[in-house]
């Protein structure tokens, strides 16, 4: 493997994000966290344990909640679907007739982290009641006119997972929404 020649969907936005940081006096920060490992995991109830063993962590049972384990987080996407974000190593192989499945979707979406007045910024285009999400939440929803996965990635930080083809649109939309902050 030659040198890393990857390009992240929002590589071109770094300076604009930095300008927002200074312009808003640090009140609001937007940054891309590129190349997050993402595994889409599907499992029937009976095969749940096997899937968890394969990805090496427990998958949340409660809708719109996450489990954290070391550098990985498992997001609830549906009654039989999860997204395991972070970690590394080989993608686990799925045995035949296992009753669970897995797809490497690491390049499908990129991660944008919002910190500071993230909730206020999201309120411009997200209909969720973000003040009432409780701890360790995640949600699939729409932000502006793009489908996203939002999750509580750290204290005072919300991570937005957006499909690569929509990322530039969403970044431009977020920066425009923040116009009043940068003056």
């Amino acid at each position, binding site marked *: 493997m030659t040198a890393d020649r990857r390009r992240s969907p929002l590589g071109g936005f770094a300076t604009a994000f930095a300008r927002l940081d200074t312009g808003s006096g640090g009140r609001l920060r937007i940054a891309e966290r590129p190349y997050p490992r993402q595994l889409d995991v599907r499992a029937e109830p009976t095969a749940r344990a096997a899937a968890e063993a394969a990805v090496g962590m427990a998958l949340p049972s409660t809708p719109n909640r996450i489990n954290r384990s070391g550098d990985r987080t498992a997001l609830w996407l549906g009654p039989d679907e999860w997204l395991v974000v972070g970690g590394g190593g080989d993608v686990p192989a799925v045995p035949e007739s296992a009753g669970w499945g897995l797809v490497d979707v690491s390049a*499908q979406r990129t991660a944008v982290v919002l910190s500071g007045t993230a909730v206020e910024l999201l309120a411009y285009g997200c209909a969720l009641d973000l003040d009432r999400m409780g701890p360790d939440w995640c949600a699939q929803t729409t932000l502006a006119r793009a489908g996203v996965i939002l999750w509580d990635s750290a204290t005072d930080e919300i991570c937005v997972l957006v499909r690569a083809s929509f990322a530039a649109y969403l970044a431009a939309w977020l920066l425009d929404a923040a116009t009043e902050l*940068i003056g």
Partner: protein
Amino acid sequence: MSQPFRHGDGDRIDRTRPLTFRFGDRVLTGFGGDTLASALLANGVHEVGRSVDLGRPRGIVAAGVEEPSALVQIEAPFPEPMLTATTVELYDGLVAQPLAGRGLLSSEPDPARYDAVWAHCEVLVVGAGPAGLAAATDAARPGQRVMLVDERPPGPGEATPAGVRRLSRTTVVGYYDDNFLVAIERRTDHLGPAAPPNAARQRVWRIRAGRVVLATGAHERSIPFPDNDRPGIMLAGAALTYLRCYGVLVGRRALVYTTNDSAYPVADALRSAGAEVVVADTRLGSRGVPPAGNPPAADLTGARITEVFGEQRVICVRVGDRRLDVDVVLVSGGFNPVLHLYSQAGGRLRYDEDLGALLPDGCRQRVDVVGTAAGEGLPRCGPPPLPEPSAADSRTFVDLARDVTIADVRRATSAGLRSVEHIKRYTTAGTAHDQGKTSGLLTSAAVAAALGSSAAEVGVTTARPPYVPVAFATLAGRDRGDLFDPIRITPMHGWHVAHGATFENVGQWKRAWYYPREGEDMAAAVARECRAARTGVAMMDVSTLGKIDVQGPDAAEFLDRLYTNLMSTLSVGTVRYGVMCGVDGMVLDDGTAARLGPERYLVTTTTGNAALVLDWMEEWLQTEWPRLRVWCTSVTEQWATVALVGPAARGVLARVAPDLAVDTASFPFMRWRDTTVAGLPARVFRISFSGELAYEINVASWNGHALWEELVAAGAADGIVPYGTEAMHVLRAEKGYPIVGQDTDGTVTPDDLGLGWAIRKSDKDFVGRRSLSRPDTARPDRKQLVGLLPEDPARHLVEGAHIVERAPLGPPPVPYLGHVTSSYFSVALDRTFALALVASGRQRIGTRLFATLDGELIPVEVTGPVLYDPKGARRDG
């Protein structure tokens, strides 16, 4: 003297902040906190415009959003049509014009920003009057979010209850399902030219509330009498508002004309401010007992205004046998609780005889109405009295905004109209900017009188959003320009831009259309790109194709049920073209399915249908076949895909994929291989949408740009050419490959497209199969996809041209056989050609038909759809 009618300190104005503005050709002054109306009145200006139909002078009637008549056009800082002077906050440099009923739109682009935000609360209180404040205070408690929304600017010294979020200059305009309310906040209008350019001028609040409290107050209404529209005739409550809030004495010789006690404090206040006031009470023998204080008695009882003198301004009125010289007439015909939002919410209204007004009568949504909006403390004076029928009825207005008189109403009823809805449409009453806020019940009363029925029976017309007019741009918000709709791009987009590609919109995607070189037009560029693909090597970004990972023990069975051909018979490592039908048997989408493993497939869809096909799969899995153990996952953006096409493609691939045996025997057509391309982990498909030797190379999308550049470099020796969607369309059309959405329109079956071979022979069902045997879908003379060769090989048929059997055309309607779906110039064939859907097309191969274009007839020969390399000899290079 400037502002001769200022009197005392209004509690809303700031006398230390003088402001200069222009109205019409007059330069005037006012104070911070003034509305345009209060500033005009302070300067003794009552007449502000002319009425829409009759052109009569019109003045200021009210002090708020209910204003029916004082319409102005704002000229600066930016033109805005038809605002009420009573709601325009004064600022330095305001320029307004009187308005004669019709607004003028500016041809200048609106420079303002607009935005929208979502908000959530447990309790939303609408209206910050006494009742609203009390409700908000009462609701405020830890953990409970209370929003208090008020249309006025924050008044000096107005306290917001602790724990309450207050929005001022914010008007709730709509009340929708599930306690969803929409409010408009006017954020910078009052700053005029000083408004910061980066701030949104107006903001749409989308509020979801657990419970709503409507403290929306009541609107005073007038009393119909001849010439009751003259400037200087206004609502009594408004006069008090102007005095108390804005320090404006609306006149010095006032007649207070009332049906109820609420006007007595008004008379009292104006008298103490030095005005001469005569009180005329319509009630016979009433001494008028006002709510509090030492009441002045009515000077005239059982009184009726029978005549008004003065055109631009009332100067004198006749009450009974008395003539009174006045400069204002202050009218109170009772009050209408403001229940527009309640009604929008689905609330029922009942007519209350005592109030002569509608009251809330129950609503399915969680909403309470409090204060005067619920009728509390309103005078129980019944509806205002109507004058006896007379010639003056044609000057006695019920709706000033639309110039509707009692005579108009009677005309409607005598024409046979009975429903208030018909009468509204006949007279246009209630349809103006104010939507009949002050006039609605007067109109109903007039209708009732004309029909000899009651206002209760007549009712009122339905209140619809918005409660007050809202600018188009405000509701448009930030979905403008490039943000109007997402622009979806591929990982190689930057390269295409840098290399001068022109783009076409394909759904939300921007796709490279062609790459013109210096001095090339579209035709030349496309010809060059096609030539490269047919004779050398060319490459295309096909990353936009939809990709779906289908896995699970029943994946094969699942795909067999959705595709017209069998996918279960694919062996691992191979790829198959497939067609999907809707339940109606019409072609839904096409693409390829690659078997990645015994229980895993990767299927592709057309660019436009990626989401539709995934939804389609999920719908069948979840709602019809829950027992199938299959999972579908979109991987469209996981992979960047480059098509490497042309006789020289193998050599180029060999150069960048050293581990891959590229010879036909080791890597035959319709197979896929995992390997390394340019050092990047890749999956290569040997499939072709051009008939040439071709590979589709997939890498993780973040490596797409690197792969593209490596291929450009590796192909340089062979003069590799990047090509766009137009060349792709030409190449596939030369081979007769249809494009779903261009050669199909939702009425085309697989057989119509000549894809009968892709329909399984086994009788195993697939979605849509039953529809293919319906009488009409089984007809032999259906429109079928064929090729067309214009007899003049230089003649290009327009896509959409229609096909007829014979020339010349008869008179319309002329029967036609079909239409041209695709039409191009082919470099390979050195001529033009087209694809068309033609009735019984396959039987007409070899015959001569005509393509019509705007009446002209172009002779064409019908051929099979495959015009280039029909034997498929070029597939392996």
